[in-house]
């Protein structure tokens, strides 16, 4: 299997209500690595095992939520081709110049029918993971600071027109549908999980009347033990936990949902399985959504459907 086209989730920019309180949370509790601050006051983070300069950016604003979610693509030719493909499909695109985000090349930005701003880019400075490139140790001290996830894994976004969003990701951007939850009448999808890789999801969407909402950004942990350790660290630091630790039926991932100090939900996640593009999607009927969300408890937690930022 060769990865081409869209490679992976590359960055999310999230709004916070109090910048320094949020920096302390993301750096010392979630255990991200702070990598820079820019002239606009944005603070840049990466997970310890990510090599590119940043994957999670926060800025102070008067409302919580997500500004945009970006994917890294293979190279500049891929970026130009996908830009042309998006325009040919009928979407307006915009070029954000290199350097507008620290250590990040030119970005192609477009808005989905769900109201979410998406970006594609080919270049971001590799600063490494703090380990040697020759004869590396398996991990270093950054893995022991706070929850310390491995990488930004995916996001779940809430908004309208999920069927149209699915067409854009599958017909233009090369993603495939991994799992879905049907509407109560079985005619459409309430929620979809999409992959551009060998992962159970690189991005997911759920139908919601208000556009542009963030359900959560997800951070990958290495083991179930590490997810439980994350839960301990959340409680030690009075982090409000939403759901878990438990296992999703959808994706089989093990999870905790919790909120940052501004009410942006995040997930510490591990597991799942390894789908390929030729697999057909797995389907959940609406009356089994509870098992899909929380398999042991078989419970459709109300906050999952109603609390977004």
């Amino acid at each position, binding site marked *: 299997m060769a990865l081409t086209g869209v490679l992976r989730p590359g960055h999310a920019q999230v709004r916070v209500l109090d910048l320094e309180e949020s920096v302390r949370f993301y750096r010392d509790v979630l255990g991200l690595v702070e990598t820079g601050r820019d002239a606009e006051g944005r603070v840049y983070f990466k997970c310890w095992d990510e090599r590119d300069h940043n994957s999670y950016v926060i800025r102070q604003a008067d409302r919580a939520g997500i500004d945009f979610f970006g994917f890294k693509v293979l190279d500049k030719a891929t970026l130009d081709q996908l830009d042309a493909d998006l325009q040919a499909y009928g979407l307006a695109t915009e070029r954000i110049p290199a350097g507008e985000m620290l250590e990040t090349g030119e970005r192609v930005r477009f808005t989905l029918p769900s109201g979410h701003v998406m970006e594609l880019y080919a270049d971001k400075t590799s600063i490494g993971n703090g380990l040697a490139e020759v004869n590396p140790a398996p991990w270093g001290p950054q893995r022991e600071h706070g929850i310390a996830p491995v990488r930004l894994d995916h996001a779940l976004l*809430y908004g309208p027109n999920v069927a149209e969003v699915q067409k854009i990701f599958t017909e233009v951007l090369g993603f495939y549908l991994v799992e879905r939850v049907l509407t109560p009448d079985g005619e459409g999808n309430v929620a979809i999980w999409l992959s551009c890789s060998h992962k159970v999801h690189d991005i997911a969407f*759920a139908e919601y009347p208000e556009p542009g909402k963030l359900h959560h950004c997800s951070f990958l942990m290495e083991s179930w033990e590490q997810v439980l350790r994350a839960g301990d660290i959340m409680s030690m630091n009075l982090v409000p936990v939403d759901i878990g630790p438990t296992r999703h039926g959808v994706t089989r991932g093990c999870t905790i949902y919790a909120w940052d100090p501004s009410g*942006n939900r995040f997930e510490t996640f591990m597991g799942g399985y390894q789908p390929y593009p030729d697999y057909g999607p797995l389907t959940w009927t609406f009356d089994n959504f509870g098992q899909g969300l929380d398999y042991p408890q078989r419970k459709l937690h109300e906050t999952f459907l109603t609390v977004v930022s």
Partner: protein
Amino acid sequence: MSHTVRIEDTGLSYACAPRESLLEGLNRLGLRGIPTGCRGGGCGVCKIEVLAGQFQTRVMSRDHVSDDDVAHHRLLACRVYPASDLSLKVIGKLQRKVCNPASVR
């Protein structure tokens, strides 16, 4: 010293310390009466109107609390800290937006 908070919708009263939010005080006692969401001023589900009493606030999302709301003490319970006995009513009812079949496309 705790203050007494009364939820007019239900008649429930509970003790809430000045250092804890109206929502934390309620939840710490294992009581229900105000919908509980993110607890960080971002999601808006715990919206209340303070009818009487003194209080302090922390920053909350403008998506859910406008200037007019602030002027009329329509606030998020997770960001309001009592400075006297208080009475309130719940105005941010949780809405079943995704799971309500009528709203599904």
